[in-house]
């Protein structure tokens, strides 16, 4: 029996949510960090959306946020011209990295030893987190504000997208550009999938998939509205898209067929990301909320419970909406 998707709304932010990122899968599950214009990025449990804590310290809108794989460290990029590194377990601020303009993007290497930043001063910076007082390595080249910068190819290369309508691939050791992809419009989002080396880009009303090593185009898909963000499922079965029309769209990656679409947000969707296990995807919107959506609608996972038709009409339906009995040892 087909079921209707019930998104889980995570409240708490008071301004638009502009970026979100998941950690890897840890012994304590996986985690989600959200960047918000209210300057207070939040950490949540990834599979339930439960709030864990708020990173307090930024003095301006937070434009980018990320977690390291183990979810022990967080990094944020803000309009106060700083990027900050945080202890994601205690919520304490570990480092403040001063920049010369608004910082938009932050990304950890796999070993969490280096942080890549990019922003309005058009320069990519690599900070050694074990030597934070040392000057960062700088890579120049972009002619406009950098929107997103990501490590790729086992942290040997860097991918960056900027308002100069280019996506560039850089070599980390030589600090030189390897390849430049020009576009007709500004790239609105970029996602890198290490397993399979896929680069997901969005611009205008198009989602494009590239080979992340060669930057060769794999395929493009046109969608009904201006795309702000797109994310590919870890198993590459589906991809999800969010944009200007407030809706979330789910597509089949192989056939490019639109499978599902959901209304729910009260404002444009700025960011979407699949969870590391692919069981759900999170969306952040201008309306200040994050919503969690099931990939397989109706499956029991996190806070969603699969209820058989007989249970729905039975007299004992009090199990449906009440909290699951918590077994305290």
């Amino acid at each position: 029996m087909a079921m209707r998707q019930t998104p889980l709304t995570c409240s708490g932010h008071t301004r638009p949510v502009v970026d979100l990122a998941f950690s890897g899968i840890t012994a304590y599950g996986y985690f989600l960090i959200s960047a918000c214009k209210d300057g207070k990025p939040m950490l949540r449990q990834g599979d339930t959306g439960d709030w864990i804590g708020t990173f307090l310290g930024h003095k301006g809108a937070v434009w980018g946020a990320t977690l390291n794989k183990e979810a022990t460290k967080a990094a944020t990029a803000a309009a106060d011209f700083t990027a900050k590194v945080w202890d994601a377990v205690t919520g304490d601020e570990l480092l403040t990295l001063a920049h010369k303009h608004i910082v938009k993007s932050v990304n950890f290497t796999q070993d969490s030893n280096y942080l890549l930043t990019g922003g309005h001063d058009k320069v990519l910076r690599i900070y050694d987190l074990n030597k934070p007082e040392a000057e960062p390595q700088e890579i120049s080249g972009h002619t406009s504000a950098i929107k997103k910068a990501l490590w790729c190819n086992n942290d040997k290369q860097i991918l960056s997208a900027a308002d100069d309508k280019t996506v560039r691939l850089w070599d980390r050791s030589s600090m030189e550009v390897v390849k430049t992809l020009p576009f007709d419009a500004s790239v609105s989002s970029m996602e890198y999938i290490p397993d399979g080396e896929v680069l997901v880009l969005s611009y205008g009303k198009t989602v494009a998939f590239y080979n992340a090593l060669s930057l060769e185009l794999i395929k493009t898909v046109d969608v009904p509205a201006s795309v702000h963000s797109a994310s590919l499922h870890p198993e590459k079965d589906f991809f999800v898209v969010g944009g200007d029309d407030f809706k979330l769209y789910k597509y089949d990656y192989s056939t490019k067929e639109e499978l599902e679409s959901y209304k729910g947000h009260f404002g444009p969707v700025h960011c979407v990301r699949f969870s590391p296990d692919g069981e759900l995807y999170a969306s952040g919107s201008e309306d200040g909320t994050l919503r969690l959506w099931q990939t397989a609608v109706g499956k029991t996972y996190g806070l969603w419970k699969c209820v058989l038709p007989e249970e729905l009409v039975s007299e004992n339906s009090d199990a449906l909406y009440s909290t699951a009995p918590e077994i305290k040892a």
Partner: protein
Amino acid sequence: MKTPVCVLRLPRGPDGTSRGFDPSSARYQALCPSTISASGPVDCVDLRSEQRARSFLRERYLRSLIAMVKRDVKFTMYEKVKVDAVFAGSDIDILNFQVEDLETPLGVQKEALIRCPDVICYSFEIDSNL
């Protein structure tokens, strides 16, 4: 008409009073440096040997719990309570002990949970043949 998927509850939001990062959460307890500070002046070598000693003691304690399973244990608790029971197991944080045949003034409780913070001390005999 499609039925909406049921949810157990809504995601919990900020509590409004603190910035979160609950120090009593399992992850915090496991990943944060111990709140028990080093016993002497902190220096690398001392810390390492102290940590080695801590590990040794903890492992010995955990093995003592394993040795205690199915044995008679005498618990001395607050409010002048002294009870006997057969130890069955402990939870991962050593906050609760599961016991069987707990001898109470109200009779023998077949299965019970004893809160460790309520226990002052406990003792049991180990087989000298082990």
